């Protein structure tokens, strides 16, 4: 339906909508985050859900302690290699549709601990991330901005065609490889279906193993 016609009708007191808009409207305003914090970013996440910043305005106040009832995972903090399998398993246990916000420098890339032997260099190596928030830690406003970005993303998703969201595609996976905590590193060290190592030096393409550690 034409957008101009729709706004014209709205002025006359007639609301015209599509099933897709209605469905996405319901979906974006009922994001239930998983009550799950890993490090200092979790404190900012808690602050964002409390009275001063009040994430409840966006329908995201119902933090669920069980992955079965949650549909938004906020990876808030440093993901250590010991914790990574549990994070991926929790993501697997969440019901569709599910979304991931990677909160803070650590969850994105390892952050200040990137050189550490025990820190996972970004949770996007194992699970698909929808929104990244930079910051160390990001302020509650940044988390609210990420939530709004995610809501806009959900609002834009068509329900049919190849661009439809993952939970409506029968062949899109709902569970991802849970890495094992091995003797030297996580096994596998990344999920190639989700993440490919970026080529740092193009002349070394093919032989380069940068980013694999």
């Amino acid at each position: 339906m034409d957008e101009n016609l729709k706004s014209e009708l709205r002025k006359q007191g007639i609301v015209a909508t599509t099933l897709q808009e209605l469905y996405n409207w319901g979906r974006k305003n009922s994001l239930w985050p998983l009550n799950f914090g890993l490090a200092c970013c979790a404190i900012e996440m808690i602050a964002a859900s409390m009275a001063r910043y009040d994430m409840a305005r966006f329908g995201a106040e119902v933090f669920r302690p069980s992955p079965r009832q949650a549909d938004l995972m906020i990876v808030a903090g440093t993901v250590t290699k010991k914790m990574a399998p549990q994070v991926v398993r929790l993501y697997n246990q969440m019901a569709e549709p599910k979304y991931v916000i990677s909160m803070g420098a650590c969850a994105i890339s390892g952050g200040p601990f990137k050189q550490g032997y025990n820190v996972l260099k970004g949770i996007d190596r194992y699970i698909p991330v929808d929104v990244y928030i930079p910051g160390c830690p990001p302020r509650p406003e940044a988390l609210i901005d990420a939530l709004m970005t995610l809501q806009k993303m959900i609002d834009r998703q068509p329900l049919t065609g190849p661009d439809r969201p993952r939970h409506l595609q029968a062949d899109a996976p709902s569970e991802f490889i849970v890495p094992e905590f091995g003797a030297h590193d996580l096994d596998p060290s990344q999920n190639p279906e989700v993440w490919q190592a970026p080529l740092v030096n193009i002349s070394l393409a093919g032989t380069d193993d940068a980013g694999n550690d």
Partner: protein
Amino acid sequence: MTNSPYLPVIVLLLAAVAFAVGPLALAWVWAWKFSPRKPGPSKNAIYECGLESKGDAWVQFHPGYYLYAIIFLVFDVEAVFLLPFAVAFTGLTLGAGIAMLVFLLLLVEGLVWAWQKNVLIWS
């Protein structure tokens, strides 16, 4: 029948049930028609704290725990009886005081028995 005073109640009841069941049925029909089911080993797992469960849930508890619990319960009930007794103490007759003492002695006897059976030593 049309003048039955219960008719509005029945209509409201039906509306209330439809209000509760309607959205659930709609969600179910939507999921069945559009959302493909995606079960998996992690999703079907019983435990939901990120860790894999190990072993069987049907484990045996040490019987010592039950003896402990029973003795605790006996003295818990004793406290329930002692409190009103203490509150009404000044107004009670000698007979009531003796009856309470007998009650206490019976419980203490039970404790002595448990003590002699080494129930109080955790092993």
